[in-house]
C-alpha cells in the first residue's frame, strides 16, 4: 500500500516530528444506542420505525407481501456497517437513482423497498409508516455529516472473481454453507409462529425487481455478512458463485412487468448481473414467476 521503505521512513519521521501518530483509520460512524431514544412524540415515531424495521410483516402487514423483514438484509436493525446501514443511507438522500431515472427522496426510496424487496405495496408518502421509518433512520444518523459518503455504507463490493460466477459451484457453496439455515429449497425456516431464517427464492422471497436480485449486490451482501455471524469467511469466488446460484431461481414477478419477459428484461434487467429473462435448467426466469 505505502510503497518504498524510504518513503515510509520519511513519513514516519515527519509524523513523529509533528506530534502523535494517528495509527488507525478514522472510526466508522456509530449510531446512538437504543437507550438514547428520546421521550415524546419524536421518540415514539423512532420506536415505531424500529419496530417496523425489525418485525415488518407483523407491524405493517398491509404493505408486506412476503416473509422478509427489513433487518434480514439491513442487519442489526439497520445499524451494522457493511450491511447497508440506515444511517449511511439517510445522509445520502435526496439523490439521483439510475433505477428510477429520477432524483428521489428518502421516503421514495423506502417505497421501493416495500414494492420490490418486500414484494408488497408502497406505503403512501406522508403515511405514519414512512414517517416512522424516516424518524428511525434520521435518529440513527444523529450527528452524521449530510451528504457524506460514510464508511460502511451499503455492501462492500468484493473484487471480480477469478472465474465467472457459476451456478453449479454456487449450488455446492449453498449446500455446504447456507442450506443449514435457509433450507435446501431456499424457503427458509419457521418456528414458534415466526419466520426465523428468511427465504432466498420462491414465492415468499423478494421479487424480481429487488436490488438483491442483482448478482453483484447479492455477492457483496453475502461476502460481508454470511453465514450469519461469520461474515468474510467465504472466499470472493464462493460469494459470487452462491450469488449466481440464489439469483438464478424463480421468485415473484417484477412489479414493472410489461406482459413480456424479454421486453421487461430489455427495459429493467439489461445487465450481466440479472438472470431475469435468461434460461436456467430449461426454464426462462420470470416466465413462470412464483405467485
Amino acid at each position, binding site marked *: 500500500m505505502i510503497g518504498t521503505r524510504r518513503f515510509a521512513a520519511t513519513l514516519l519521521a515527519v509524523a513523529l516530528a509533528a506530534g502523535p501518530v494517528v495509527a488507525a483509520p478514522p472510526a466508522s460512524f456509530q449510531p446512538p444506542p437504543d437507550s438514547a431514544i428520546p421521550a415524546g412524540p419524536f421518540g415514539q415515531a423512532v420506536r415505531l420505525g424500529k419496530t417496523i424495521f425489525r418485525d415488518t410483516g407483523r407491524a405493517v402487514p398491509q404493505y408486506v407481501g412476503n416473509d422478509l423483514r427489513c433487518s434480514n438484509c439491513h442487519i442489526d436493525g439497520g445499524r451494522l456497517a457493511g450491511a447497508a446501514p440506515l444511517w449511511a443511507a439517510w445522509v445520502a438522500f435526496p439523490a439521483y437513482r439510475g433505477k428510477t431515472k429520477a432524483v428521489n427522496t428518502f421516503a421514495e426510496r423506502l417505497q421501493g423497498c416495500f414494492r420490490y424487496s418486500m414484494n408488497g405495496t408502497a406505503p403512501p408518502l406522508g403515511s405514519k409508516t414512512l414517517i416512522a421509518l424516516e424518524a428511525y433512520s434520521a435518529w440513527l444518523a444523529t450527528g452524521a455529516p449530510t451528504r457524506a459518503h460514510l464508511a460502511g455504507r451499503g455492501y462492500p463490493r468484493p473484487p471480480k472473481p477469478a472465474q465467472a460466477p457459476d451456478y453449479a459451484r454456487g449450488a455446492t457453496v449453498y449446500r455446504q454453507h447456507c442450506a443449514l439455515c435457509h433450507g435446501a429449497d431456499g424457503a427458509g425456516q419457521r418456528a414458534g409462529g415466526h419466520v426465523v431464517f428468511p427465504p432466498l427464492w420462491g414465492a415468499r422471497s423478494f421479487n424480481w425487481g429487488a436490488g438483491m436480485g442483482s448478482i453483484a449486490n447479492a455477492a457483496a451482501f453475502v461476502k460481508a455478512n454470511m453465514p450469519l*455471524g461469520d461474515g468474510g469467511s467465504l472466499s470472493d469466488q464462493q460469494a459470487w458463485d452462491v450469488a449466481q446460484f440464489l439469483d438464478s431461481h424463480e421468485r415473484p414477478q417484477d412489479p414493472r412487468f410489461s406482459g413480456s419477459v424479454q421486453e421487461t428484461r430489455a427495459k429493467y434487467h439489461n445487465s450481466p448481473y440479472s438472470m431475469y429473462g435468461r434460461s436456467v435448467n430449461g426454464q426462462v426466469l420470470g416466465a413462470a414467476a412464483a405467485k
Partner: protein
Amino acid sequence: MARGSARCALASGVLLALSIAAGGAVAAPDGAAIVFRGIGTAPACASCHGAQGQGNSAIGAPPLAGDGLAYLREQLANFASGQRLNPIMQPIAHALSPAQQDAAAQVFAGMPALVPHPVAPEGNPLGARLAERGRWSEQLPACTQCHGPDGVGVGTAFPHLAGLTAPYIAGQLAAFRDGKRPPGPLGLMGRVAHKLSPADVAAVSAYFAAAGGAGTLEKTP
C-alpha cells in the same frame, strides 16, 4: 419433521414388534422400547429425561421433547465417539448402535415440543440484549436468530434453549468454548462461545432458563 404424541410412538412400536414377530424380518430398532425400557446396558432414556421428554433438572438431564432429529442424532453420535464429553451419556450412547441411536432420537423428536414463556427483559437486560439483539460489534448474532423466538428451537438442527436450566446452558457454553463438545455445524457454537464473557454466559443462561419457567412447562397439543 414428524410430530406425534409419546403414546402414538409407543403404539407404533408395539405394532412394529408384532409385525416383526409375524414376518420374521429384520426391522428397524424399536425406538419406544429403547426409550421406555432400555436395551442391553443402556437404561431407559425416559428414566432420566422423563416420559414426556421433559427432562429432570435435579439430575441435570435436559428436556429433549420436540428437539430437532438431526441435532439429537448428532449428540448421541458425539457421545458415543467421545467427542462430546459426559461421564453418564458416553457409555449409554456407546452401548447403542447407530440405528438404535436414530430410533431413540426419533421418539424424542416426535414428542410435543415445550412452549416457552416470553421473558420480561427488565430483570435481565444483558441477557435480553444478547438473546434478542446479539453484539454485532464482534459479529455475535442474537441467540434467537438461530434458536428461534424465546429459544423455542428451529427445525432439525437448532435445539431449543427454553427449558434448559441455567447451569446446563452455562456448562454447554463452557464445553463449546473448551472443545469438550464439537462446535456444531458450520462451527457456529464454537465461534459464539468464544465471544461470551463469564457475565455474558450467566446472563444469557438465566434468560433462557426463565423462558422455560420454573420447571413447569405447557405442552403444545
